[in-house]
């Protein structure tokens, strides 16, 4: 489920990303990724009990996925692999469409649980890097995007 067409569809269909484990530290990868997605037109919903009730990236932060009052598309997980299964359950409970485990996070049971509940599931990938890879930007730093196409892209990448 992480071929180019599927990832393009997931990032195209969903516009709200709940970032579980978002840090307030600007040089942490979770902050990098969330800020990038926000700049590329996604709404970020911060989820982190440490900052619950405070704004992060200009959005209110929630203690858990179940506290979010509005619909969520992608649940983006910046947590240790062994902590992901309950997050997958929460994602299913709130009707999220995608369980996305960040690079280095690889909980196969959580992935299988999400798939069985009809969600899309991505594991061990970074949303920012995949967005930059498939919609433009990552190519500017010489990364092998594996994109081969003779079609002119519809949007400009910046």
């Amino acid at each position, binding site marked *: 489920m992480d*071929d*180019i*067409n599927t990832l393009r569809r997931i990032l195209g269909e969903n516009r709200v990303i709940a970032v579980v484990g978002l840090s307030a530290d*600007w*040089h942490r*990868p979770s*902050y*990098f990724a969330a*800020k*990038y997605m926000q*700049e590329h037109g996604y709404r970020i919903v911060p989820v982190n009990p440490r900052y619950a009730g405070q704004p992060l990236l200009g959005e209110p932060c929630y203690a858990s996925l179940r506290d979010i009052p509005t619909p969520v598309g992608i649940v983006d997980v910046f947590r240790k692999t062994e902590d992901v299964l309950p997050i997958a359950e929460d994602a299913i409970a709130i009707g999220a469409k995608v369980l996305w485990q960040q*690079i*280095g996070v690889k909980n196969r049971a959580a992935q299988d649980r999400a798939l069985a509940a009809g969600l899309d599931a991505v594991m061990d990938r*970074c949303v920012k*890097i995949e967005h*930059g890879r498939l919609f*433009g*930007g*990552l*190519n*500017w*730093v*010489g*990364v*092998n*995007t*594996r*994109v*081969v*196409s*003779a*079609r*002119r*892209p519809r*949007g*400009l*990448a*910046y």
Partner: protein
Amino acid sequence: MPDRAFGIETLCLHAGQIPDPATGARAAPIYQTTSFVFDSADHAASLFNLQTFGNVYSRISNPTVAVLEERVAALENGRAALACATGQAAEATALLTLAKSGDHIVSASTLYGGTHTLLGVNLQKLGVETTFVDPDDPANFRRALRPNTKLLYAETLGNPLINIVDIEALAAIARDAGVPLVLDNTVPSPYLCRPLDWGADIVLHSATKYLGGHGTTMGGVIVEAGRFNWGNGRFPEFTTPSPGYHGVVFFETFGDFGFTMKARMETMRTFGPALSPMNAWLLLQGVETLPVRMDRHCANALAVARFLADHPRVTFVNYPGLPGSRYHALASKYLPKGASGLLNFGVRGGARAGERFIEAAQFMSHLANIGDAKTLIIHPASTTHRQMSEEEQRRAGVAPDMIRMSVGIESIDDILWDIDQALQASAKA
């Protein structure tokens, strides 16, 4: 639908470039600009913080140069690449990213002369020590390891001695030691050999040679496989906050292209040996036809090697594609499509005969480059190694009568004709 694994011929034409989003131009546009505007103060801040991807200044990245970078990364089956102004610049940039004063390198002794000097003289002056070992026995690399060793270095196919290293054996030693294996893959080009597939961690190119292929343009490329664990304790600069970027941790933030980002954002940004967009574009024109050129270079070189092996005026021929070569087994394993276009041979009659051969050539060009579409020849004893005594030359593997030839893609009968008439002339005192 699973992603298609495209063939190398397709990648030579397509990897790294889709039609220009702004204009629909099919060929890669030449973005001949030093700088790129920011949309806002916040956009500028995000770019300087490395939080977003984008171009700031062409010393750091440029969209035309990026096409070449991604294309070569794809050809080498790597994760990411950084282009540099020359092959030497690629070596220096890679090595300065990996090693600092007090560190140690183990390198094959069989190297392009400029590389030998970079390691043995210039990096030495900066406090990085290199031990040179005979690569024919890979165990020599293991024996030279020290606690402060940061990398193993070799040329896949050595210039000018035309030796082949056992990539898998070197990769195993590097893996055990927890250091990356860095290979200069200039002479085979990724069409003939992909060292990353055999376990190397970083590949370097002088794109000046076969990648560009027409002797018009200088360039270099560094490619990272994306598999090396920079968090193994030997590379704290990759896992601790970078002072140049207010605390960005390159390996954590960029993961499997962390080395390339560090090389670009720290070494390239500060030392500055960037490739120009115009030169990147010229090199890209060459890369498009790399497979067809390399097939012809290999076929012509094999024909030349066979011709020389039977020629009465020739004392020896080194070409790994010949069954008699001591590197034939390694060539069959690592270079199954052909052993590239480089060979060397001896002219009967010693150094003077070698010089006369060079002077008698009609269209074979007497110059110091390799990897041009045209046939090139040089007599190392009277040129590149002239300052050495005959004894020193022998130790460096340069026989007095040795000619190095970079076989081009002219009509093979014409190449053999020019060689033959020059050999006949070399006999006349």
